[in-house]
């Protein structure tokens, strides 16, 4: 793919001029190194994708025998069978509800927190940012069991079912992406001139009016970036999903293992199901990745 990377340094694409640098033509040594590295990395990145796609189109006897690069016969049957072998549709809906709700809540809460830290001066600000950030380094295994016990106890004493419910998982997941989201939005809000919301305050907006009418619209790329991050975190989490869910609330992270625990592993169905659960998120991510880079540039990497 990168083999048509010829006189690359020539300023021939003015649209992304901000990242073009040396006006001198790059030497052959650089171009060849680049070709080799980029080809290797592209192949490495895409190898499992190729296996996923090609194996999902193979008949069962083909995936059960020796691996072949080219499928011996193409079939789309696995794509119909996946819904019957395990209740994939239900897992899908569960994942969508859990990840979607966790994302929305996490983003709203992060916007409030980041606004407070970015625009106000108050006692305990430093303690807040340091504490929130340091929760990132806790090993999940350390609070998995206590959290599980807390949820069970809350359920026993108040009747609010957190353990085994989607609510408990939503609550847990939204805190996973929260520290990073707050951190990134603080940086992003800081990059928005304070004159803008000062002016809004002078014009009679309340602080929340200034936040929602001025700061939030100006920070859309940063907010999209943290939303993408929050959704992906929740969509891909395995450990808590496997402990905190039951048959009806199971998410894709656990449900997908259903194909593999049978006597026969239906590898073509496993691959088809993996592809089905991956396509929406990969497509969404690739559409929004520019925002993520822009958000990281302004927010987290300074």
């Amino acid at each position: 793919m990168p083999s048509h990377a010829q006189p690359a340094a020539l300023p021939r694409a003015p649209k992304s001029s901000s990242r073009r640098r040396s006006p001198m033509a790059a030497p052959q040594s650089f171009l060849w190194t680049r070709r080799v590295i980029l080809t290797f990395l592209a192949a490495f990145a895409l190898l499992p994708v190729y296996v996923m796609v090609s194996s999902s189109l193979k008949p069962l006897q083909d995936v059960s025998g020796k691996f072949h690069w080219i499928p011996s016969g193409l079939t789309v049957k696995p794509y119909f069978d996946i819904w019957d072998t395990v209740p994939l549709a239900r897992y899908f809906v569960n994942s969508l509800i859990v990840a979607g709700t966790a994302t929305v809540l996490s983003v709203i809460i992060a916007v409030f927190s980041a606004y407070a830290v970015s625009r106000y001066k108050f006692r305990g600000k430093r303690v807040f940012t340091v504490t929130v950030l340091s929760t990132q380094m806790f090993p999940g295994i350390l609070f998995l069991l206590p959290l599980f016990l807390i949820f069970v106890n809350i359920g026993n004493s108040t009747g609010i079912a957190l353990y085994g419910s989607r609510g408990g998982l939503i609550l847990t997941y939204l805190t996973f992406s929260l520290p990073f989201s707050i951190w990134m939005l603080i940086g992003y809000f800081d990059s928005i001139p304070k004159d803008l919301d000062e002016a809004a305050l002078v014009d009679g907006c309340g602080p929340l009016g200034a936040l929602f009418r001025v700061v939030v619209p100006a920070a859309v790329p940063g907010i999209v970036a943290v939303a993408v991050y929050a959704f992906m975190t929740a969509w891909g989490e395995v450990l808590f999903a496997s402990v905190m869910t039951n048959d009806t609330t199971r998410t894709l992270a656990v449900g997908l293992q259903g194909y593999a625990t049978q006597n026969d592993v239906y590898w073509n169905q496993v691959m088809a199901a993996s592809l089905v659960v991956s396509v929406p998120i990969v497509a969404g991510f690739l559409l929004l990745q520019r925002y993520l880079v822009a958000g990281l540039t302004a927010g987290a990497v300074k």
Partner: protein
Amino acid sequence: MTATVTTDSRTEKSDRVTSRGTGGARRRLPRIPDRIRQGGLPYLLLLPAVLLELLVHVIPMVIGIVMSFRQLTQFYINNWGGAPWTGFDNFKIAVDINAPIGEALLHSFFVTCVFTFFAVGLAWLFGVAAAIMLQENFRGRGFLRAVFLVPYALPVYAAVITWAFMFQRDNGLINHVLHDQLGLTDQPSFWLIGDNSIYALIIVSVWKGWPFAFLIVMAGLQNIPRELYEAASIDGAGIWQQIRKITLPSLRPVNQVLVLVLFLWTFNDFNTPYVLFGKAAPENADLISIHIYQSSFVTWNFGTGSAMSVLLLLFLLVVTAVYLFITSRGRKGADA
């Protein structure tokens, strides 16, 4: 770390913001009136985040630490407050390397260290190389950038299950290439059990981790002023020199945070080994998080499991502190 620095530099500006309405002459208002004017608003805004972090992270962690001093078995699971105190017994069991539990924990710790070293090192190397090679514009750049981010976007379980399929002994791609096509091995090898499993784990972890490094470094590269490169090229510096003298030094602060984050995530990683190997990892790839999970949820010994988790946390705290100390000293040295 970066966040705290920016927080400090901002404090003076926000002083100006809040006192602006009262005119320039009173710019140096004492702090207390400011705080009264803004009322409890900042605290109100922070409240949801604080409550949630307390409920899901801080309180469970405190309970986890308390549990590590109790004899917590499945009999006390509904009444864990009633489990008897045992002092440091759980810790003694966890670190007694002459007994099976302590020996296994130490082994698992070594495995995790080796795994983390290679997984972080390679992921970092690939990410930096990819970002630098894509820094300039050329045809196909946008496409490659999307391709490189695919492993990051794929859900862990879907991607790792695919790797597990590729590593199957009889019907996997890896053995097909190594044995059937290249003839490098006498017979198809096992990858998901036995001695090779650590290689399989490192490869999958690198595959999953390097696009994140790529993303962060790519963002970091955009903050390097273009003028530096222009000046360098006017002075006659070639592209290799520019990479060595401008790009890599400018990336230092980004790299420091990146390596720390990669280290913490990789060392704590549960998802990759769990999906690749299942509940019980092969001895050679028995990462610490799986090991603790196994000790707590499978053998139902939560007290010892908690003690192991606390030891893990202490270790991570020490490493992080040392790392931050070294890197901040390095930065000061560079400034001086």
